[in-house]
């Protein structure tokens, strides 16, 4: 049984599915504009040298967001 977790806690190379996004306003809008919506599968492909921000690979492209922004996103780890 997999547990919900915060995207900040995700490790490099982990594959995840987005469960919910709690961000509102401009941040919420930006997150959604770039295709991060519930149900999206993401693959953590790296973290910056100081462990923040984090780089995520979606199906067709890569994006990056800060840990403070990842805090608003709840994910479910996927079995690989």
């Amino acid at each position: 049984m997999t547990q919900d977790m915060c995207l900040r806690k995700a490790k490099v190379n982990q594959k995840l599915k987005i469960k919910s996004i709690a961000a509102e306003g401009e941040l919420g809008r930006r997150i959604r504009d770039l295709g991060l919506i519930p149900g999206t599968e993401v693959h953590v492909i790296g973290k910056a040298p100081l462990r923040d921000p984090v780089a995520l690979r979606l199906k067709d492209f890569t994006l990056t967001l800060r840990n403070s922004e990842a805090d608003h996103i709840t994910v479910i780890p996927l079995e690989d």
Partner: protein
Amino acid sequence: MARYIIGIAGNPNCGKTTMFNELTGARQHVANWPGVTVEKKVGHIYSGPDAVELVDLPGTYSLTAYTQEELVARNFLVDERPEAVIDIMNADALERNLYLAVQIMELGVPLIFGLNMMDEVRSSGKRIDSALLAKLSGCAVVETVARHGEGAQELLKATLEVAESKRGHWEPLTISYGPDLDPVLKEMQALIEKEEFLTDRVPARWTGIKYLERDEDVVIKGRMTNTAVSDRLEAMAREVAEHTEKTLKARPDAIIADYRYGYIASLIKDVVSYPVLDADRISRSDKMDKVLTHQFLGPIIMLAIVYLIYKITFSVGEIPMGWLESLFGWMGDAANAVLPDGLLRSLIVSGIIDGVGGVLGFVPLIMFMFLMISALEDSGYIARMAYMLDRIFKVFGLHGTSVLPFIVSGGIAGGCAVPGVMATRTLRSPKEKLATLFVAPYMTCGAKVPVFLMLAAAFFPKNEAAVMLTITLGAWAMALIVARVLRSTVIRGASTPFVMELPPYRMPTLRGVLIHTWERTWEYAKKAGTVILGISILLWAMMTFPQLPADRVAHYEAQRAAAGSEEQVSEIGNIEAEEAIRHTLAGRIGTALEPLSELAGFNWRVNIALTGGFAAKEVIVSTLGTAYSLGEIDAEEAQPLSERLVKDPGFSRASAIALIVFTMLYAPCFVTVVTMARESSWKWAAFSVVGSTGLAFVMAVIAFNAAEAFL
């Protein structure tokens, strides 16, 4: 024979500008959208008998009211009602790119899809059925590869056909937003149509959606049009928002986004297929990232690249800069030879030729810097720089990309704030950009170096290198601290969301880089002929008028007549120059400020030099020379001035430290100020002049008194 206005929209990094360049060639001009600093590019082309005005809209992911770029793009669609809009999409990420397209379709503007980067799609093994996409979406679809010019003419042809057949008729797309929002949206639509609320410009349902999304811009316009209707719509939106938050734990804007993506998913379900997915190809960029953003290697490679940009800009740029300098030197000499001694000659040589020449001298620097920055930006590396450095800059309220303007401005001593300020263009976050603009000129630019070297040689002999290093680090510290202070006072507020795309690495195209560089350089050179010429003449007048009264001139003439040797004559000339400059407006300001400036250990001579420094920091050393009756001092060979300063009892070591601090921080030279105004606003540039000078003075007083106490 018809005239069409066509907009080109699209996400950032989708090749939109490349396509725009492909279609318009050099027939384009750059301006700003009214009231904002977002760039507006317009190109005029002829297609057969038709005249077409192509407008390059800012790259956006969406059409909300959160950023200036999105508002500009949206207002263009609504207010100018273009005959058609081309949406350039990165077909490799079709789903996300359709998110913008769907929003344009909801507005109803006739839309053409430009499926760009089809070469990447094909080589990745993905297949896109564009005929099916056209059928399902009802929009014309053209496959393109903008960087090779493929499909550009077909795209234009399809666009003109759409423009001709639609004749300004808008057909808004209707998407279902689910059982919670659809009923209220229907009610809103009925009310809006009945009251004819904003319906002269936008579809009723669209206005309803915007009220549900709590779109500030639309709501404000709505209130101004009809407060009663707006209030009712707002109440309806509030009510349904409370309901969805309770039942679905989501606000309407999130639900709307979900349904839009749902609609897109159903649209492309059979359009995109992956018969043989070449996983290797997809991850090539990821593999490069493994090295280029590696925990240890990444920062080292980045440092090397930044250093290289800096080195090339300033060492290669120096060569044509030398030519320009010689050219203007020759023009000055020629004017000196042709014109009779007097005010006109002084105006032409010192005011116009020196002023404009000094400004045009920067052109090679700007050219080389933009050549490299455009190439880096097009390659996708700038986004990685932001990614790696963001953690550090975030602490100071800045953005990872702020590093570039800092370095170019003189983060490595010897840069120049003019191209540095222009490099803030790569910053997409408005608050972070303002803060970066304000503090980038604190860096040790090439013109400040001689001032620091002269003072170091005079007061810290043998320790010049250590002094220069301390100054450079001090400038970084001050820039970051002041940025932090600005971000928690004047430009307070949460940081702009960082969420951004890391586009795949791509080879920049020569054409794209050249066009970009040309635009920047030309824009800068144009300024030299207008605003900068005016200010240059003004500053010349300040340092020339009023002139010495006739009896004083006669007094020196008499002395010269009595002088025995050449040396004495030039000595008298220097003393006269000192008195003359003290007599001018700049001199009077300097003298009047002496009681105040003494708090920082500056005498009137230093004040005049610093006033001259508003024009250009190089002027500080030469003006100080004149004020110390040494005649014109060459900034590169300031030894006599160093010696003279050490001997001056009124100028102590503490004064020297205070002068270093003041020069580091005070108002940027006016060329930088003009550039800054162009990147932000005149208000912000003026605030930078006043604020930085005030800060510089306070810091100089502190430094002076601390040095007095401890040295």
